[in-house]
């Protein structure tokens, strides 16, 4: 399997800030690399020495369960040391700025910073201010690259390729970094993306994105090969963007009834955490079409691949600057 001949392609990015700037080749290279990490969970010793002696810091300024634990476990499996940083128990509460915090962590010898921040662009700012590698684990409404990579990986793993697939992303597109990163990754890999949701939850300038838009899930569900249900993000919905949760659920929730209209082999995805009974019915989330837990397992392989690749790029950069 996958006896692809050696390519001349070299991964040279020491930061993963978003998928918008990545080429199709780069995205495919990450997915191919992740395949090598998939079997780790079945080993007798679930560790490799690839990042031995390296220090990874998880800087999370927002809540997270999956992404944070996934990065921690991924770094541990590559034998890195991991520092957990949370906003609530840190000097950020004393007024320290992001850059100062990061520079201080860097002074302790941190090699890779994994950052989640409520401000879009925070990882980019950080990457210009410190020498360590920076990985974006979600910034504001902007991007969440590792989530989109694991989504693409899961689809490719099951469907073989993304070329020509019709993939629906349903829900609050405007406030979703998952949607934004998914749009970049999936379209670059050859899929057709259809955004589905109420007009109030569509991003401004949606016509400039390489996607189709539908305000009715019932109108498009029978065409989809994959449906990615976004979470209703109550913490981001300040205004009156939809009349009521019940009404939203009625028109855009993925119910058993609605799924009957879809192709029998449709993949049901969700980035988590689930609002059971709102955007997705429990029986659908736990049903035969759901690959939600597989997404979580694959996330680990993707994050190991990304940690490995950014570190390798940093080593090669050091080699180039000291010939």
């Amino acid at each position, binding site marked *: 399997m996958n006896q692809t001949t050696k390519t001349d392609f070299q991964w040279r990015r020491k930061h993963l800030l978003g998928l918008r700037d990545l080429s199709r080749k780069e995205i495919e290279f990450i997915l191919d690399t992740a395949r090598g990490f998939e079997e780790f969970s079945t080993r*007798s010793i679930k560790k490799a020495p690839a990042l031995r002696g390296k220090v990874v810091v998880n800087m999370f300024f927002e809540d997270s369960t999956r992404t944070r634990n996934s990065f921690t476990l991924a770094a541990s499996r590559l034998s890195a040391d991991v520092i957990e940083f949370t906003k609530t128990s840190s000097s950020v509460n004393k007024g320290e700025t992001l850059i100062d915090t990061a520079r201080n962590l860097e002074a302790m010898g941190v090699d890779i910073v994994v950052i989640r921040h409520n401000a879009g662009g925070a990882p980019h700012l950080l990457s210009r201010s410190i020498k360590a590698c920076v990985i974006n684990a979600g910034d504001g409404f902007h991007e969440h690259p590792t989530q989109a990579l694991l989504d693409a990986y899961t689809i490719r793993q099951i469907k073989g390729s993304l070329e020509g697939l019709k993939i629906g992303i349903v829900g609050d597109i405007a406030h979703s970094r998952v949607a934004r990163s998914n749009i970049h990754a999936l379209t670059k890999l050859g899929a057709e993306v259809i955004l589905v949701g109420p007009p109030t939850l569509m991003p401004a300038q949606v016509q400039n994105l390489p996607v189709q838009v539908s305000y009715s899930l019932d109108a498009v569900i029978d065409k989809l090969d994959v449906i990615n249900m976004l979470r209703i993000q109550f913490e981001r919905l300040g205004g009156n963007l939809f009349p009521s949760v019940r009404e939203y659920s009625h028109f855009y929730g993925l119910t058993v009834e609605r799924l009957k209209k879809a192709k029998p082999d449709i993949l049901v995805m969700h980035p988590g955490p689930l609002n059971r009974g709102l955007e997705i019915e429990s029986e659908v989330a736990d049903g035969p079409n759901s690959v939600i837990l597989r997404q979580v397992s694959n996330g680990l392989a993707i994050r190991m691949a990304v940690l490995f690749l950014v570190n390798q790029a940093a*080593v090669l950069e050091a*080699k180039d600057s000291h010939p």
Partner: protein
Amino acid sequence: MRVLLNEAQISEILDSISQDIASDLGSNNNLVIIGIRSRGEILAQRLQKRLSERLGKEIPCGTLDITLYRDDIHDPQNAVPSQVRTTEIDFDIHQTTVLLVDDVLHTGRSVRAALDALTDLGRPKAIRLAVLVDRGSRELPIRADYVGIRVDVNPEERVQVLLKETDQIEQVLVE
């Protein structure tokens, strides 16, 4: 550039190595073969075919990717861009006798990495090493149990094993 082995000679060597292996390890009920990506993988599959025929039983065969275990991946002086590929070993190596297969034995560093990688997969009863070419210039205390051909080449020369499956032609070259 000179040709060290042609197609017929490679095939002869594999026949003779598999004969030696069969007489040494053939009575062993737990023999498995593991090739190091990528040329070792192909040689392992060819030895597997010969040994399975010779011993009248199907010998399990797998592929090991050693990228994560290489000792140069952190070393700014020696790091080279490398791609992590899959390890495909769908059997338990615990208590087995592993025949590890690679194309060229040189510094011994790839074999060192492979031994570490195997240890993380389980605890074999024994590990034996078979290589097509031993070109000398070892940097680590490692030797092969089965060697196709030994050659002395200058340190700056490169021994290249080309196999039909990946290279369309079948040759061992020194250049």
